[in-house]
C-alpha cells in the first residue's frame, strides 16, 4: 500500500513537471538562466532559413559591372561641380585652383603673404604666424608664383567685442585684385562669433578660402578642405618650444590625482550645461574638479548657492600642481569648443579627457587622436570617472607617451602649428606624393618626413622596427676630396683600398671638391666595387647632397685624410645597423653651456662625454642627406658654404633634432687625425684658431634657428665585445682594433 502511494505521488509529480515543461517551454530555460544568474547571449539568432541558398543576389553581375555610365561628359560634370559646390560646400576639387601649384613641378607649393598696410594692427599671435610662413621654405615674395595666399590683415580674433577686432575686412579683401573669391587663400582664425552664442561666423565672407581655425565645429568643417588648428596663447613660442613634461615613465603610471579640472563655471549661456555640471564629479580625493563663478564683470548678479563654497575650494588647489600630478585632465568646452587647456594638458602629459561635442580636433585630417586622448561625451559626464578608472595601466602608459609625441611634433611652437597646416594642404595638392597616416602618427612626426624623398616607409630610418624589417646589408662610402691627386701614396688611396675591402661596401663615391679638375679615370686604383666621381662644385654642403648615385640606405661619410681599418669600418657598420636612425662614427666632440658668455660653447678636448660625431668618418642613413638639403633653410647652408666649416655640426643638430638622442661613438684604433699631416697640405684646418671660433659661432647660430639646443650628451662608446679583454687574440673578431 505504502509503495503504491509512493508511486502514485511520484507519478503525479512527474506528470506535473512534464506538463509544465511542455506548456512552459522557455520557462525552463529562463529558470535555468535565472538560477545561473546569466542571460544567454544568443537565444533567438537570425533564423537559418531553409531556402537561403535560393535567395536572389542583391545585384546581378551585369548590373555591377556595366554600371550604366551616364551620358554626361566627365569634363562637363567637373565644371558643373565647381558651380554647385561652393562656399560652405567647398572641397579641394571644386574650390581650389591646382594649376597655380603646378607651375614649378614639385617645387610649386609656394605661399605668398599680402603686405600689411601701415595702420594695420597685427596681434602678437598673427605676427608669429606670418613670421613662421615668411621663414618657411615655402615662402615666396612673388604673387605670380604663389599657390597659396595668406592675408596681411589679422583675422585671428573675430569677436566684435574684442580689442583686436579688425573692422571692414569684407570691403578690403574685395578690393584685392588677387582675392578671386578667396580661391587658394588661407585664412587663420582663433576666435569667431561673440557673446552670447559664439557662432562660427567670422564677420566677413571667406568665399572659397581655406579656413584654418581653432574650435571648429564638425558641422561647419568642410572635410578635406578646412584645417582645424589648436587654440594657442599669444605667449606660445615662435620656434623650438618647450619640451613635454614627461621625463620618465613611472610604473605604475598613475599619478597622485586620477582626474582634474580647474576652471570657470558658466552660470548662463552657451557651454554652461557642461561647465555647470563639472562639480558633480569632484570627490576631493582622487578626482578634483574645481569651478569658480568669479569671472566676468557681473558674476555676482548670477551667483548661486554653490558659488561661495566652490570659490573657496577653488583657491585651495594650484592649477600647475594639479597639471603635474594628475593622470587625466578634463578638457571641457568653454564658450567655444576648443580651449587653452587642451594644449596645456597635452604638454603636461596629463591625458586629455575631452568633453566638447562636435569639436573637430586639431589636425584631425592626419592625427589619430584616439591614441592620445579620451574622447568623452558631454552627455555622459557622470560616466567619466568610471571610464577613466577602467583605462588600464598599459593604455595609460601609451596614451601619455603619445601626448608627448604629438606635442613635440606638431604643437610646441607656432612654427610647428603653421607648418603642419601648410603641409596638410600641400599633401592634398600633391596627393600622390603625400604622407600616409603612419608617417603622421609615429615618431618623429610628419613634419620631418618629406614625401618628396619617398613615400615608402622602409626608405626612412625610423620605421624599421614598426615594419618588422631590418636595414640593408650594404653601405655607400662618400669620400670628400679637396686635395688634387698628385701621388699614389696620398691618404685617399689608402682609404679607398681600406673601404673597398669591406664586405659591406657596395659602392664608393668621390666627391671632388678640389680646385683642380678631377683626375683621369685611370689614375684611380682598380677597385672591387664601383667607383663614381662627382663634382661637388667646391661647396661644403655638397657632401650632404642627396646624390642619386647613393643606392644604399647607409652612407659612410669620409674625409680624404681619414685613417681607418677595414675591420673598424665593418664594426661601425654593424653598430649602425642596430641604430639606423642615429649617426654612428668615430671622432667625438662636445658642446656645453658657457654661463659667462651666455652662449653655447664647442670643445674638441678629450672629454668624458660627447654630443657630436664628426662626419669625417661616420655612418648615417641617406635620408639625412635629403633632410639636410631640403628641410634646413638656405641661410644655414649658405653659412656653411661661406665658411667651409660646420657642416658636420649642422648634420649633428639635424639628426639629434629628429631623434632626440645623441650620436654613437664606436671604438677606434688610433685617435683621429693623429698622424702628422702629409706634405702638400698647408695646414690642418682644425688646428686653426679661426676655424675653432667659427664653429663656436655656428653652434649658436644653429641653436638659434632650431629654437632650442637639440644636441644631447652621451657617456659611452661602443666597443667590440672582447675589446682589450684578456683573452687570446685568436678568439677576437676585431683584433686589428687593439693594435697600437
Amino acid at each position: 500500500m505504502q509503495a503504491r502511494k509512493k508511486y502514485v505521488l511520484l507519478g503525479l509529480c512527474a506528470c506535473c513537471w512534464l506538463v509544465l515543461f511542455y506548456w512552459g517551454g522557455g520557462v525552463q530555460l529562463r529558470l535555468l538562466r535565472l538560477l545561473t544568474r546569466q542571460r544567454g547571449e544568443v537565444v533567438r539568432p537570425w533564423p537559418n532559413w531553409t531556402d537561403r541558398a535560393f535567395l536572389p543576389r542583391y545585384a546581378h553581375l551585369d548590373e555591377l559591372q556595366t554600371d550604366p555610365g551616364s551620358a554626361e561628359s566627365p569634363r562637363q560634370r567637373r565644371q558643373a561641380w565647381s558651380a554647385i559646390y561652393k562656399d560652405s560646400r567647398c572641397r579641394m576639387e571644386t574650390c581650389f585652383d591646382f594649376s597655380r601649384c603646378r607651375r614649378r613641378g614639385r617645387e610649386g607649393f609656394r605661399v605668398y603673404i599680402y603686405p600689411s598696410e601701415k595702420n594695420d594692427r597685427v596681434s602678437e599671435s598673427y605676427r608669429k604666424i606670418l613670421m613662421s610662413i615668411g621663414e618657411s621654405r615655402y615662402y615666396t615674395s612673388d604673387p605670380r608664383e604663389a599657390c597659396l595666399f595668406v592675408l596681411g590683415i589679422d583675422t585671428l580674433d573675430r569677436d566684435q567685442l574684442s580689442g583686436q577686432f579688425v573692422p571692414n575686412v569684407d570691403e578690403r579683401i574685395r578690393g584685392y585684385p588677387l582675392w578671386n573669391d578667396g580661391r587658394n587663400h588661407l585664412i587663420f582664425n582663433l576666435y569667431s562669433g561673440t557673446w552670447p552664442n559664439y557662432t562660427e561666423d567670422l564677420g566677413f565672407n571667406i568665399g572659397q578660402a581655406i579656413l584654418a581655425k581653432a574650435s571648429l565645429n564638425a558641422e561647419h568643417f568642410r572635410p578635406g578642405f578646412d584645417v582645424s588648428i589648436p587654440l594657442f596663447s599669444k605667449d606660445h613660442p615662435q620656434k623650438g618650444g618647450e619640451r613635454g613634461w614627461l621625463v620618465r615613465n613611472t610604473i605604475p603610471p598613475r599619478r597622485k590625482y586620477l582626474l582634474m579640472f580647474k576652471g570657470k563655471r558658466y552660470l548662463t549661456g552657451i557651454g554652461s550645461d557642461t561647465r555647470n555640471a563639472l562639480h558633480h564629479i569632484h570627490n576631493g580625493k582622487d578626482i578634483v574638479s574645481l569651478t569658480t563663478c568669479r569671472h566676468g564683470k557681473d558674476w555676482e548678479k548670477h551667483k548661486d548657492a554653490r558659488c561661495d563654497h566652490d570659490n573657496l575650494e577653488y583657491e585651495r588647489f594650484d592649477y600647475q600642481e594639479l597639471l603635474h600630478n594628475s593622470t587625466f585632465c578634463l578638457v571641457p568646452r568653454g564658450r567655444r569648443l576648443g580651449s587653452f587647456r587642451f594644449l596645456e594638458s597635452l604638454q603636461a602629459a596629463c591625458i586629455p579627457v575631452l568633453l566638447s561635442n562636435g569639436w573637430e580636433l586639431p589636425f584631425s585630417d592626419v592625427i589619430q587622436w584616439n591614441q592620445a586622448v579620451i574622447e568623452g561625451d558631454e552627455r555622459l559626464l557622470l560616466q567619466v570617472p568610471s571610464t577613466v578608472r577602467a583605462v588600464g595601466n598599459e593604455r595609460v602608459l601609451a596614451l601619455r607617451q603619445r601626448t608627448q609625441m604629438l606635442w613635440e611634433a606638431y604643437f610646441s611652437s607656432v612654427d610647428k602649428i603653421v607648418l603642419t597646416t601648410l603641409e596638410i594642404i600641400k599633401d592634398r595638392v600633391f596627393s600622390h606624393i603625400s604622407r600616409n597616416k603612419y608617417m603622421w602618427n609615429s615618431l618623429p612626426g610628419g613634419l620631418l618626413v618629406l614625401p618628396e624623398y619617398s613615400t615608402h616607409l622602409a626608405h626612412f630610418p625610423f620605421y624599421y622596427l614598426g615594419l618588422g624589417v631590418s636595414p640593408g646589408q650594404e653601405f655607400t662610402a662618400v669620400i670628400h676630396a679637396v686635395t688634387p691627386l698628385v701621388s699614389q701614396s696620398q691618404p685617399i688611396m689608402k682609404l679607398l683600398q681600406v673601404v673597398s675591402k669591406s664586405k659591406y661596401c657596395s659602392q664608393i663615391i668621390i666627391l671632388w671638391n678640389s680646385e683642380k679638375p678631377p683626375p683621369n679615370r685611370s689614375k684611380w686604383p682598380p677597385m672591387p666595387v664601383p667607383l663614381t666621381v662627382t663634382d661637388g662644385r667646391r661647396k661644403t654642403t655638397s657632401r650632404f647632397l642627396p646624390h642619386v648615385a647613393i643606392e644604399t640606405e647607409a652612407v659612410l661619410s669620409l674625409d680624404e685624410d681619414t685613417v681607418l681599418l677595414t675591420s673598424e669600418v665593418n664594426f661601425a657598420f654593424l653598430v649602425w645597423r642596430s641604430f639606423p636612425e642615429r649617426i654612428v662614427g668615430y671622432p667625438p666632440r662636445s658642446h656645453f653651456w658657457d654661463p659667462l658668455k651666455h652662449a653655447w660653447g664647442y670643445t674638441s678636448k678629450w672629454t668624458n662625454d660627447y654630443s657630436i660625431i664628426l662626419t669625417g668618418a661616420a655612418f648615417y642613413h641617406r635620408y639625412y642627406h635629403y633632410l639636410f638639403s631640403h628641410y634646413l633653410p638656405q641661410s644655414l647652408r649658405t653659412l656653411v658654404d661661406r665658411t667651409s666649416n660646420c657642416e658636420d655640426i649642422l648634420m649633428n643638430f639635424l639628426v639629434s633634432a629628429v631623434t632626440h638622442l645623441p650620436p654613437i661613438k664606436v671604438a677606434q684604433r688610433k685617435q683621429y687625425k693623429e698622424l702628422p699631416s702629409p706634405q702638400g697640405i698647408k695646414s690642418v684646418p682644425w688646428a686653426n684658431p679661426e676655424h675653432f671660433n667659427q664653429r663656436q659661432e655656428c653652434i649658436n647660430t644653429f641653436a638659434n634657428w632650431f629654437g632650442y639646443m637639440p644636441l644631447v650628451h652621451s657617456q659611452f662608446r661602443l666597443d667590440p665585445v672582447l675589446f682589450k679583454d684578456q683573452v687570446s687574440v685568436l678568439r677576437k673578431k676585431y683584433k686589428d682594433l687593439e693594435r697600437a
Partner: protein
Amino acid sequence: MYASGKYSSRGPALIPRMKTKHRIYYITLFSVVLLGLIATGMFQFWPHSIESAADWTLDKRSVHDAPLVRLPVSSPIPERGDLSCRMHTCFDVYRCGYNPKNRIKVYIYPLQKFVDELGVPISSTGLSREYNDLLSAISDSDFYTDDVTRACLFIPSIDVLNQNSLRIRETAQALAMLPRWDKGMNHLLFNMLPGGPPDYNTALDVPRDRVLLAGGGFSTWTYRQGYDVSIPVYSPLSADVELPERQPGPRRYFILSSQTAIHREYRAELERLKEENGEALLLLDKCSNLSQGAASARKRCYKGQVYDYPQILQESSFCVVLRGARLGQAALSDVLQAGCVPVILADSYILPFSEVLDWKRASVVIPEEKLSEMYTILKSIPHRQVEEMQRQARWFWDAYFSSMKAIGLTTLQIINDRIYPYAARTYEQWNNPPVVKWSSVNSPLFLPLIPPRAPGFTAVVLTYDRVESLFRVITEISKVPSLAKLLVVWNNQNKSPPEESLWPKIGVPLKVVRTKENKLSNRFFPYDEIETEAVLAIDDDIIMLTSDELQFGYEVWREFPDRLVGYPGRLHLWDHEMGKWKYESEWTNEVSMVLTGAAFYHKYFNYLYTYKMPGDIKNWVDAHMNCEDIAMNFLVANITGKAPIKVTPRKKFKCPECTAIDGLSLDQTHMVERSECINKFASVFGTMPLKVVEHRADPVLYKDDFPEKLKSFPNIGSL
C-alpha cells in the same frame, strides 16, 4: 531538472506523516496548482517581448513564412536624411551605456514582408542572399542581442542594399513602421548601390530620418564624417572565384583596365596612354561575341583575344578603377582580391572604411583630371613600395572586403570604436597585415627619453640564506652614488632575516621583503617599494663589480631605458647538427642576452614579467628554479625588438653557471638545461626574439691614453 529531482526525492519523506488518502491528494493537487501558478506568473512577468514570441523555437523556416505587413497609403514617411547629423546630435548614446566589455549591443528586427495596400511588395527582390549573410554574421557575433531593450543599435531586416530594387516611398514608410524607429535614432542601414538614373545620388534616396547609413558610394558631400560609414560594394565574384594570393612582385602588365562601362572620354584617354606606352598597358573591354549573362561577366576581350576575369587582374601591377555613374565600384573588390594595386580615379569618392584604413598604403588615388599623367605618376613609385601595396591590397580584401560578414562586422567595429573611443582599435591593428603584425614591434616605452639621473635606481637583491655574502654585496652597492634604495627579497621561508641591528649601515633606505614561496620569479615582482624607474637586479654573491662599473651601468641604462643593461653577456646559437638552439657562455664576439645576476632594467618589465609573460614560462621557471634571466631577455627583446646592452669588459665573474664548484659534469648539465630553456621559450613565443649584436658599452675614454684621474669612470675593468 535539478529542481524536479529535489522535489521527488522529498516526496516519500512526507508520506509517513499523512494519515488519509485524501490528504495526499489534496497536497498533491495543491502543489500542482501552486507550481502552475508560479510558472504562469513567472512567464507573465518575466521581461519578454510579444513581437518575438511567434518565432520562438522555430528554426526550420522559409523566408516566405515571414509575416506579411500591409502599409496604409497614409502611413507616415520619414524625413530625408539630415546632413548635419553627428554622433552627438543624432545618436542616443544612453542606449549603449557604460559596459565593461566596451561592446555595443546590436538588435536585428525579425523578418517581415511589407506590401502596400494593393499587396505589391516594397522591394522586387525581398531579402537578398547577401543581406541574409550579413544579418546571420551579425547574429553570430558578439555584438548581437535578441533583447530589444538592451540594444544600442538596431538593424532593420528590410534589405536596402540595392536601391534599384526598391520602391522608395514605400520602403521609407516601412522603415517608419518599425516598432523602435523613433526618428531613425540608432538605426543602421546597409546600402551598396545608391541612387538611380539619371543623376545617381551618392547616398541612398530612401527618406530615412536620422539613420546611420553604411553606404557604398558616398561622395564627400553626402558622407557625414564621423557618423556614416563608407563600405565597399560587395562583389559576388569574391565568393565564386578563388584567387590564390600571389607573391608581391613585378607582373606581366604594368597597368590594366578591366572595367566595361567606361565613359568614352576616359576610354579615349586610356587608348592614348596605351599608344604611348605600348605593352605595359592592357585595356580590356566587353567581349562583343558573348551574350549578356554570367558568362560574359567572367570574360574580357582585347582585339579578339579573350581573357578570364577576374584572373587576368593578377597579371598586372596596377589596375584602374574608374568611377562610373556611381562612385563605388564592385571592381575595386575584385582588384584587391587579385592583389593588384588599385588606381582609383573617382573624385570626391569616400573610400571604403576610410575612417580606419590607410588607403595611401594600398592604393593610388589620382584626380580624374590627371588621368593622362597616370603612367608617369605610377612609374615614379619605387618597386619596393609597389610590392608593399600589393600585399596591403590583398590584406584589405582578406580582412574587410572578402565577405558580407567581413563588411558587416567591420562596420560595427567602426561604430563601436566611436562609442567606446578609449577602447578603440589602433592604426596598427587595422592596417598591418598579419605578417607585419607578427614581425613588427610596438614598444610600450616608445618615446625617446633619457630619464634624469636624480631619482637613481633601486637595487633588488634576491637572497636565500647567504647572509655574509649578502652583507658584502650591500656594502659594496651602497657606495654607488645613484643608488636610491636597496630592496632585499628574502626568499627563505624557513629562516627569518637577521635582526635589524646586524645589517650593514648604509646611507640609503634598506627594505627587506619576505616572500611566501621560494620562487625565482619573486626577483621580478613589481614591488611597490620600487619607486624608481630603474631597477638593478643583483645576486647576493656579485661582489666583484666596482662602484664605477655600477654607476656607469646606470648611466648607460639612462640612455637605453627600454633595454636590459647588464654585465655578463651570453649568446644563443643555432646548432645545425641537432637542429635546435644552444646556449653559449664562452668568450664570444657576440652577445644576445645579459644575465640578470647583475643588470639594470625598467620597472615596467617587472610588471610584464609578472603579469604578461606568455604561456606557462613563469611556472616553468619556478618549477625548474632556473632560466629566469633567459625568460626576461626573451620578454624584453620580444616586446622592444632590441638587443640588450652589455656594459664594461669581461670580469672574472663567479660564474653563475657553475655554482657547484668543481663539477664539470654539473656544469654541463646546467648548460644543457639552459639550452633547453631557450628552445622551450622560443617555441612558446613562436619565434626567436633575441637579437645578436657585436658591441658592448664602455666609457668614452676607456683604455685611452689619458690621465686616469680625469676620467669619470676610472675603475672599470679591473679584475
